[in-house]
């Protein structure tokens, strides 16, 4: 096992990794920007080193300063968390070059999955169902029209290097195809430096279902159940749950096996997630793979009792997983709500500020992952995720009731948060019946009637 690990990240995920390391007996090195001097990950780590000024580009993305810190403090592993350099194959390669273990897959696996069109082709070859679409990038209108004849309308134009909804266009008729192609190419070029786009059948009202996998270097690859992340807003996940409501066991098995095939096809090691779209008839299609730990990993931890981050670190240290697929058992239902410092009444505008009060919820079945505390000043430089509340219940209704009471008792003053939004979702009749799809928020939630706080406090 490693002796000393550097966390090239901040916020709740840095705290999460420190927790795992402390349980494994690994010393930790936190790096931080000048804006994070009082951050919890800095206070909890065994050592901490300032690596730059507030802007992420000059600190958390500053590879020379991160690598210098790693060498100066003699670490033998680096955990990238999520975001920042987590899916940068170059960063993973540099770690390899200086003989520091990168807690993640090989540069090749990261690079392959980073190119959506290449990933799609590899998955198709491996027998993982993909959405019918173009065979690689399409260069011009003529090619696109040719493809549309096979897959039909509606279809979607997507950036090969894309993500987060940029460089994406839904096309409903042949007439709209050319313009959509041009706009998507221009957007992709601007956002990712590559104008490559490809076409896919547009799955209407799909659910976002993903499979957590974990693979060691001895080719033992496990799937740890499925998560439903359909509650999104502009492709940003807001609420995740496991198991997906109403998903039958045989579909879970099929999804899991497909995910394991996907991982094997690219010699994957470590923790990863295969994201699928699922249509109304429970047909599923490979969407993309995230080659890192994900924000929503706790829901899987809650229903399996496994510590994914500890296992991820162990396999990076070339240890075997120690369990087989048959040892993975599921119990109950878990939901995660992302509490962002955003104002849901103001189009989810990020709202940095000082937390004048911060009393997290507790009690049975409630887990909180956060880097915040009373008095913490949220810097304006980074993402707005403030805390993750995860509620476990023996069944979905209990998990919902528990999440509701946890959010009602969560006291945060100083900044607006997404708590009122989540309470609205939890109280929604369609959500309660498990009728979720990726455009649920647009269709079912009227943000204009959000109250400042559906509060638990006596009126």
């Amino acid at each position: 096992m490693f002796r000393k690990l550097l966390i090239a990240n901040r916020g709740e995920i840095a705290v999460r990794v420190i927790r795992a390391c402390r349980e494994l007996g690994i010393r930790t090195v936190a790096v931080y920007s000048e804006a994070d001097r009082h951050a919890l990950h800095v206070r909890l780590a065994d050592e901490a080193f300032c690596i730059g000024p507030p802007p992420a580009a000059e600190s958390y993305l500053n590879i020379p300063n991160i690598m210098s810190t790693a060498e100066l403090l003699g670490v033998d592993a680096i955990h990238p968390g999520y975001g920042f350099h987590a899916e940068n194959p170059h960063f993973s390669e540099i770690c390899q070059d200086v003989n520091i273990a990168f807690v993640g897959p090989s540069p090749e696996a990261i690079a392959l999955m980073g190119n959506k069109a290449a990933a799609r082709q590899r998955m198709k070859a491996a027998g993982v169902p993909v959405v019918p679409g173009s065979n690689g990038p399409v260069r011009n209108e003529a090619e696109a029209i040719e493809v549309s004849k096979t897959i039909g309308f509606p279809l979607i134009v997507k950036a090969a290097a894309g993500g987060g909804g940029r460089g994406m266009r839904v096309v409903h008729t042949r007439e709209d195809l050319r313009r959509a192609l041009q706009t998507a190419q221009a957007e992709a070029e601007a956002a990712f430096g590559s104008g490559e786009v490809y076409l896919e059948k547009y799955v209407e009202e799909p659910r976002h279902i993903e499979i957590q996998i974990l693979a060691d270097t001895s080719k033992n690859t496990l799937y740890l159940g499925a998560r439903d992340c359909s509650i999104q807003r502009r492709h940003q996940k807001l609420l995740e749950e496991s198991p997906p409501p109403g998903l039958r066991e045989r579909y879970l098995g099929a999804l899991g096996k497909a995910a394991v095939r996907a991982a094997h096809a690219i010699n994957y090691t470590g923790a990863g997630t295969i994201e699928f779209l699922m249509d109304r008839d429970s047909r599923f299609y490979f969407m993309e793979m995230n080659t890192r730990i994900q924000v929503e990993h706790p829901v899987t931890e809650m229903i399996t009792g496994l510590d994914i981050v500890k296992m991820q670190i162990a396999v990076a240290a070339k240890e075997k997983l120690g369990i087989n697929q048959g040892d993975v058992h599921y119990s109950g239902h878990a939901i995660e709500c992302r509490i962002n410092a955003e104002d849901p009444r103001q189009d989810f505008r990020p709202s940095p500020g000082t937390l004048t009060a911060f009393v997290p919820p507790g009690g049975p079945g409630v887990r909180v992952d956060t880097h915040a505390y009373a008095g913490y000043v949220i810097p304006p430089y980074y993402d707005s995720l403030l805390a993750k509340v995860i509620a476990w219940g023996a069944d979905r209704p209990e998990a919902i009731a528990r999440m509701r009471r946890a959010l009602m008792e969560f006291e945060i003053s100083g900044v607006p948060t997404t708590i009122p939004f989540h309470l609205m979702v939890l109280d929604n009749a369609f959500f309660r019946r498990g009728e979720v799809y990726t455009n649920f928020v647009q269709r079912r939630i009227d943000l204009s009637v959000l109250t400042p706080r559906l509060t638990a406090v006596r009126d």
Partner: protein
Amino acid sequence: MTEPKLDLDQIRAVIKIASESPDVAELEVASETLKVVVKKVAGAVRAVVSTPASSPSASPAAVPSTQPAATGSTDQLVSITAPMVGTFYRAAKPDASPFVAEGDLVEPGQAVCIIEAMKLFNEIQSEVRGRVAKILVENASPVEYGQLLMLVDTTAP
């Protein structure tokens, strides 16, 4: 009447006392010839959090980088801070003489030390004219971003 020199050790001692007293947000000490005002950073959170004060890596860097040092004589002592993470060297080579010693006069643009990072040697230069009042880092020590390396007294003749 001659101008008495600043007693830097006394200033440091006062800062130390303030740092070691968690309840104190502001400390003002005045004698006939010297007045020192120490205001602690963001009293609120810092006081709650007892770590920063006792954390070795945090305390030196707590002095703002390339800002006048936080002493009574704000307009006199200018700090030189590390612009990158790396190893601090006072000389260009192990057997060479140091770029500067305490008491030396430096000119703007004059090299005062080297920080080695990723096998590259980065020369750090003074931005001001003055006398090197204090070198705060041992030769060959690791330095973090923004760490205070030297103080330059710009009023020195």
